[in-house]
């Protein structure tokens, strides 16, 4: 080619590579954190702690995958925590009304269905009313939760349907750690499998390409024949369905159906997703990055005590990680844009 080209980013050594691939940057940060933490307290690397960490990532991780999808299309979904709690509670209340004692799968199906429906409402409001998704989902956030508490009930249930309660003990690996039974919760595997399926769908199916295309350049996507509206709706529906699943898992794993729970989780989810490198303007981000973002936030959120930092400082670290994770790649991007004469400054 004869026109001026930019130097390939890979040519600039390890640091440049790290900065270019958010996943690599996150992995390095996570490895560094793990090394530091396990030096400070070797029990960080115990099965008990690692399994615990895995379990803590589940519900935030599921919601994060959904939010990631919506962000990829250039929208935003703030309402996931309300969808999660609504589907979980409605499912539980319904099952308990019928004194249901059958398989947990029905509960899963119901929660996913309710979550998906609430997500569909978001999607339809966004695409048909042509309102910004930020506004719509802030509206439905308060609406869903308000409706749930005002019209469905506020009672917290601790005696869940038997199969649902049993799910809290659903373990895939069991071992004994200092005489204590520790188990890797099955939900961790479910999260990983779902994430893998989603990652495959995003990279291998046209649906996935369309999700990225819409966030990347919506006009081009329209001109290339992508059914933009319906694809955007699917992102909201999946986000709702994943949130529904997250809510159900949260309730089953804590064996409590509490309609007041999960309040404010949307902020943690959003923080994890943007830390994972998903662009809030769409078109960029990956499943792996999202999971790594969730993992990093979970590590910071649940291991500081182990290394002797008071929980009080936890938020500070999360904030710094987010700023660092978002800021450093941005600086690099700005520099590249500058070099290519793309930035119009004052």
């Amino acid at each position, binding site marked *: 080619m004869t026109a001026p080209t930019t130097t390939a980013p890979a040519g600039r050594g390890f640091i440049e590579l790290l900065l270019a691939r958010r996943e690599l940057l996150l992995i390095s940060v996570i490895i560094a954190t793990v090394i530091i933490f396990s030096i400070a307290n070797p029990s960080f690397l115990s099965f008990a702690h690692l399994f*615990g960490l895995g379990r803590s990532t589940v519900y935030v991780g599921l919601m994060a995958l959904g939010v990631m999808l919506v962000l990829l299309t250039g929208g935003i979904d703030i309402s996931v925590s309300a969808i999660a709690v609504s589907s979980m509670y409605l499912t539980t209340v319904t099952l308990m009304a019928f004194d249901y004692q059958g398989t947990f799968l029905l509960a899963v199906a119901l929660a996913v269905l309710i979550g998906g429906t609430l997500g569909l409402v978001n999607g339809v409001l966004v695409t048909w009313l042509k309102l910004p998704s930020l506004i719509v989902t802030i509206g439905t956030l308060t609406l869903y939760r308000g409706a749930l508490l005002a019209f469905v009930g506020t009672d917290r249930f601790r005696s869940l349907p038997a199969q649902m309660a049993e799910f*809290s003990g659903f373990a895939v690996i069991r071992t004994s750690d200092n005489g*204590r039974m520790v188990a890797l919760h099955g939900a961790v595997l479910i999260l990983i499998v779902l994430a893998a399926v989603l990652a495959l769908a995003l990279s291998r199916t046209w649906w996935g390409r369309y999700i990225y295309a819409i966030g990347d350049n919506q006009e081009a996507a329209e001109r290339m024949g992508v059914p933009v509206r319906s694809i955007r709706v699917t992102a909201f529906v999946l986000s709702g369905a994943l949130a529904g699943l997250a809510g159900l898992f949260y309730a089953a794993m804590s064996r*409590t159906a509490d309609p007041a729970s999960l309040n404010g989780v949307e902020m943690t989810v959003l923080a994890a997703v943007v830390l994972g490198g998903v662009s809030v303007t769409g078109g960029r981000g990956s499943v792996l990055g999202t999971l790594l973002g969730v993992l990093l936030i979970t590590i910071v959120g649940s291991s500081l*005590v182990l290394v002797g930092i008071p929980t009080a400082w936890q938020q500070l670290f999360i904030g710094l990680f987010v700023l660092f994770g978002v800021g450093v790649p941005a600086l690099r991007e700005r520099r590249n844009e500058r070099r290519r004469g793309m930035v119009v400054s004052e």
Partner: protein
Amino acid sequence: GTTEEGADPAAPIDGEGGGGDASGAVVTVPKLTGIPWFNRMEEGVKLYAEDTDENAYYQGSAEADAAAQVRVIEDLIASGVAALCVTPFQPDAVEQVLKKAMDSDIIVITHEAPTIENADYDIEAFKNDEYGINLMDELAKAMGEEGEYAQMVGSLSSSTHMEWVDAAKKHQEENYPNMTLVGDRVETSDDAQKAYEGMQELLSAHPNLKGVQGSASTDVVGVGQAVEEAGLQDSIAVVGTATPKDTVDLLESGAIDVIQFWDPGFAAYAQNVIAKMLLDGGTVEEGADLGVEGYSAISIEDKVIYGDKAWINVTVENSGDYDY
């Protein structure tokens, strides 16, 4: 001020929606609405209203937020209630709005806030240190009076929780020399999931842990679940404040040994009785019987009214006796 009207005996008692007339009413304000503990409190208020035919009802904010509670109280003052029975979310945060209420001649009775300034009376089911000491006795009994234990509180800024754990710790140091407190107090934000995660961390950090004392009503729920999953029902003792309904399964499995609580419904009932007494121009006497379980011979210290050690201990044997 509207106190001259007193409570209107003819006012309808309103259970399900509809506009209850606020003016002249005695209104009970919980920390927040929608959690079982305060749902029970609401039942107490309803019971009182039925028993006495007074215009008494229950109203609170949807959020676990001191500022939101203040706004509910503001609205109630503006709508001309006669008396407020408040369980402050954070006692110090409501001082000013309660002062405003007192300045508008509204009777103010608080609960779970023995140090409050702007109230006619505060009512406590018991003395907090005695409650904490009793919890420690239960814990020591379950641990065989030896080993490491940890303490959890809903929030480090909750004065009652802190009084319980402080008194318990002091009592342990004086009476159970073979027990040791490990770790910082774990803060759980009244969230069972946080308590669960906190317990997992405690187990990792202190493999020899033998006991846990919980404070918030969600603490032992999370802790019990962690214990059950770790298969440590028999080696770790768990005691703390909770409601029977929340813990029945964990008590049965042995993950929780003892729960201790008081009945928020009766406390609210007692608050309402005192409020009514004051509205009628009466005074509260030492040893008086408020006509509700646990408050048959109250004691008064300064502005704080104590019930007769009105706490309840529940183990697996009697867990079926309560439906809240």
